[in-house]
């Protein structure tokens, strides 16, 4: 695929894993914190693994916040993965109340019973806008202690098991996934392929 993927380097996240999965999908991949370089990309990735306040501090230090918000407002593609998805929201209560990017309405709150959700889950679609067509037997890998709570119109998929965990959120062409597609084996790879087709088609 002739897609330029820009992985936003905010000094956190499993960057090498994400870089290599997109390389295996024949994308051009750039890992950068430089606005002029990231501007040339078709898709921005906000990687996961880390805490919300630390990530927001780093985004602020690197002067990336207004750049990412503007990118979304211009209806360009963003995919936030795990922590990257949470950063897209208004606030998180992880460690302390911290302001997020505010691109997708909703907040990040502690998982029920304060238990980390670690492992594999099936997904259930919440909307008709289902270009992803995730299969009923497709499991995805989750690893998070906090989760999304927000308006239903931003929710695309949720986990099948209780308690309810929102798995995919979206606003315009900004998408957030609570799971790790890059570490969800064949299901994750298929998800990314479908997502890249959407990026390539431009809507």
């Amino acid at each position, binding site marked *: 695929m002739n897609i330029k993927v820009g992985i936003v380097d905010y000094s956190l996240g499993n960057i090498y894993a994400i870089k290599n999965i997109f390389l295996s999908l024949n994308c051009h991949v750039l890992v950068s914190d430089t606005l002029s370089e990231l501007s040339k990309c078709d898709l921005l990735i906000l990687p996961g693994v880390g805490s919300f306040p630390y990530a927001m501090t780093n985004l602020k230090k690197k002067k990336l916040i207004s750049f990412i918000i503007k990118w979304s407002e211009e209806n360009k593609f963003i995919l936030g993965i795990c922590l990257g998805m949470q950063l897209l929201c208004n606030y998180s209560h992880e460690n302390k109340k911290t302001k997020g990017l505010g691109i997708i309405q909703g907040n990040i709150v502690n998982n029920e019973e304060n238990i980390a959700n670690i492992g*594999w889950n099936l997904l259930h679609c919440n909307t008709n806008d289902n270009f992803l067509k995730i299969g009923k037997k497709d499991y995805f890998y989750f*690893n998070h202690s906090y989760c999304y709570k927000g308006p239903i119109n931003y929710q695309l998929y949720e986990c099948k098991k209780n308690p309810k965990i929102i798995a995919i959120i979206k606003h315009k062409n900004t998408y957030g996934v609570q799971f790790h597609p890059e570490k969800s084996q064949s299901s994750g790879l298929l998800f990314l392929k479908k997502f890249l087709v959407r990026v390539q088609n431009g809507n």
Partner: protein
Amino acid sequence: MATKRIIGAVIIKDGLAVQSFNFNNYLPLGDPIILIENLDRWGADEILILDIDRSRNNLGPNFDFLENLSKFKIKTPLIYGGGIKNKFDAIDVVQKGIERIVIDQWLNSNFNEVKELSSILGRQAIITCFPLSIKKDEIKYYNYLNYKHTSISKSFMTDLKKVSSEILVIDYKNEGSFGNFNVDLINKLLPVYNLEMIAFGGISPQQINNLLSIKEISAICIGNYLNYKEHNIQLLKQSLKNKNIRPEKFLKEI
């Protein structure tokens, strides 16, 4: 919540994957990347890489190995333990493509720094390692650097819950000894500490059924056994009665 997990373990010593017996005797198996690729291809739920001589020899994490491993595009979540002794090590390990880290000796030397790391990476990314045994009916923590067994306090374990998501309970005495995992380790820990646990060390398929029926056991970690046969993880899953796991899936590419 998510399904319980079957974790494939690869033990590395001096750069080679080894079959380990009690973390004391070792049989070389070869290139660890080949074993990791196999577990990835066979659909392990997570892969644990334990680089056991890094802390003992004060070598720090093996970044060259992790960077090389990332080129193999492993699509299974990776856990790495070995020589992590400060927050910079931990963040660098994650950036090399690792989702979760195992902390062992650092926990003993500087708990406050581990706490700080938890506020940076999130506690879901941190697993604490506990080689344990039972002596005179009491659980003892084994420090493999000074070969001493010490008691573990309730306050320490309560603090641990705040900084890590799971503890890796290693029956180090029975590790490599098929079917001899001492379930009393779990039974003694459970009523007191109420932590999410990963059981590791000499676990047979028969024991897995029993262990997975315990609410607080979130995963089973298996080393040597999985390497003997193609798709052994999927065959193992097929044989399990506990259905709160991701079902087996036989594919050329998982």
